[in-house]
Structures are given as structure tokens and as C-alpha cells.
């Protein structure tokens, strides 16, 4: 994992509240901060249930993928056009994606293996325990 959006679950919550609130963004952010992680989880769960996956697109991440064959990367790109991939050297790649694409990869037979690696990286780095639990059923590490 090279980089990921800071406060990913809060970022998703901001995008979701933006759709349904007339308040200025500062007030939305303050409200979300006050209500805390349980509320972000509630909003994320509702977004997943309602299939409003667009709000997940604001949580983005960049990874270094090593040892991937060009043909396999090309196959992924054909099926998931919102993946952004740059070949670094040989079989090393810089890959950027958003959380919606990650969910779509995870749900697709030809994307699941790659998605599992990304989810494991997110889990290992404790980047987004609420998102991992709600989207993929991955339990957060004990703190």
C-alpha cells in the first residue's frame, strides 16, 4: 500500500451526507465528527444496502503490485476500466483504484483474487476497519 485517503469511512460519510443535506460542508463534517464512527458505519451500511456505491468512489488508494503478468493486468483493465495502472519495471505495477472498484472486483469471479490481496493489505495496515467489515465481512484487528 503506497497511499490511501485519510479517514476513509468519514470521507464516504461526507459524500453520502452531501447528497441529502443542504448544510455547508463544514457543518456536515462537524456533525459527522461529533456523531463518530458508529454513525459512519450506519451510513456506509445503508449505502451498501441501497446499492449507492457512488459514495465509495471518494475513498481512493494506490498500491505497488509486484510480479504480475502483463496479460493478467490487461485482462483486469478490460473488465474494470476505472483501475489506473502504470508499469514501473518488468512485472512491477503502480495501481490506483477507488473503493467502489474494489467492491466490484471483489464481487467478480475474475477480480476476486486481486481484490482479496488489496483487502488484506488494507486490513494489515488498519486503513479502514469499518469499511472492510461492512463491505467484505473482514473483522477488524483487536486494538
Amino acid at each position: 500500500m503506497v497511499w490511501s485517503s485519510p479517514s476513509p469511512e468519514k470521507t464516504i460519510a461526507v459524500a453520502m451526507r452531501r447528497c441529502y443535506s443542504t448544510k455547508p460542508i463544514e457543518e456536515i463534517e462537524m456533525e459527522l465528527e461529533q456523531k463518530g464512527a458508529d454513525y459512519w458505519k450506519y451510513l456506509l451500511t445503508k449505502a451498501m444496502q441501497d446499492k449507492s456505491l457512488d459514495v465509495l468512489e471518494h475513498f481512493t488508494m494506490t498500491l505497488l503490485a509486484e510480479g504480475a503478468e502483463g496479460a493478467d493486468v490487461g485482462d483486469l483493465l478490460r473488465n474494470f476500466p476505472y483501475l489506473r495502472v502504470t508499469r514501473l519495471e518488468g512485472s512491477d505495477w503502480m495501481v490506483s483504484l477507488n473503493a467502489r472498484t474494489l467492491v466490484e472486483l471483489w464481487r467478480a469471479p475474475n477480480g476476486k483474487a486481486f481484490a482479496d490481496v488489496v483487502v488484506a493489505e488494507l486490513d494489515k495496515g488498519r486503513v479502514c476497519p469499518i469499511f472492510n467489515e461492512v463491505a467484505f465481512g473482514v473483522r477488524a484487528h483487536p486494538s
Partner: protein
Amino acid sequence: MDHVVYMFEIEDCSRVTTHQLVRHRAVSYDQESQRFSAATREGVVTPPSIQTNEAAYKAYDEALKTVYSAYERMVAAGVPKEDARYILPGAIRTKLVMTLNARSLMHLVWQRTALQAQWEIRELATSLLNLARDATPELWTKIIER
């Protein structure tokens, strides 16, 4: 360029301008919904060409009053906001969040800061450029120098 990502919070631009904005692809948008939020008379953008023209402003203001009066009467009569909004003007102010990578932002800035672009989206694109340049100065200095 594909791996540098910006998230912007945009407020108080018109729906006319966000219709232009969403023509830019590979960008994620989430915008204040008119299905659930009530529109207010105060929340409109007035173009300078109308603001500075007395006769035009009078026509604009009268039309807005008529439209908003009809909107409020429809909502009061029980029409859902999502249906009453069909009458709302493009001038209405809106709020959104937008996430895009540096490549998409460069294309947006290139197109929308051009003199042919309309004044409001040109102002918006210039603000986006300035914010991106503040956040990642080395990248944008190189882009602008190219």
C-alpha cells in the same frame, strides 16, 4: 498523473455550471439532491451580464419569483419535492463533492480556464487549479510549464 488524487468540496455554484462539470469523465461526483432538499428563493446565481442590466435583471427576478412561487405552491399542495423540482431554474445554487486524479483535473483545467469557457466554470476551474497547485506545487508547476 493517474495516481495523484484530489477531492474537492464545491459550494454555491449554479446547476448550469455543474451540468458542464459532469461532462468531464473519470471523475466521481456526489451532489446535493433536489429530490429531498427544499429549494429556496435566495439560492440562485445571477450572471454579471444580467446583474448589470436593469431591464434584464427585472425580467430575471420576475421569472424567478414566478418559478419559486409555483414550486412552493406545488410542495404545499402535496407534490413530492422530486417532482416539483422539474420547474426549478438552472440558476439554482448547488453543493457537491468531486474526486478526480491529476490527469482528469489537468484536462478539466485546460478546457475550462480557456477564454471560450463560460465565466462561472472558468472561475471554478481557476479555483480548482489554485487549490491543486497549493496542495501539490511541484506537479502543477511542471504541468503549467509544459
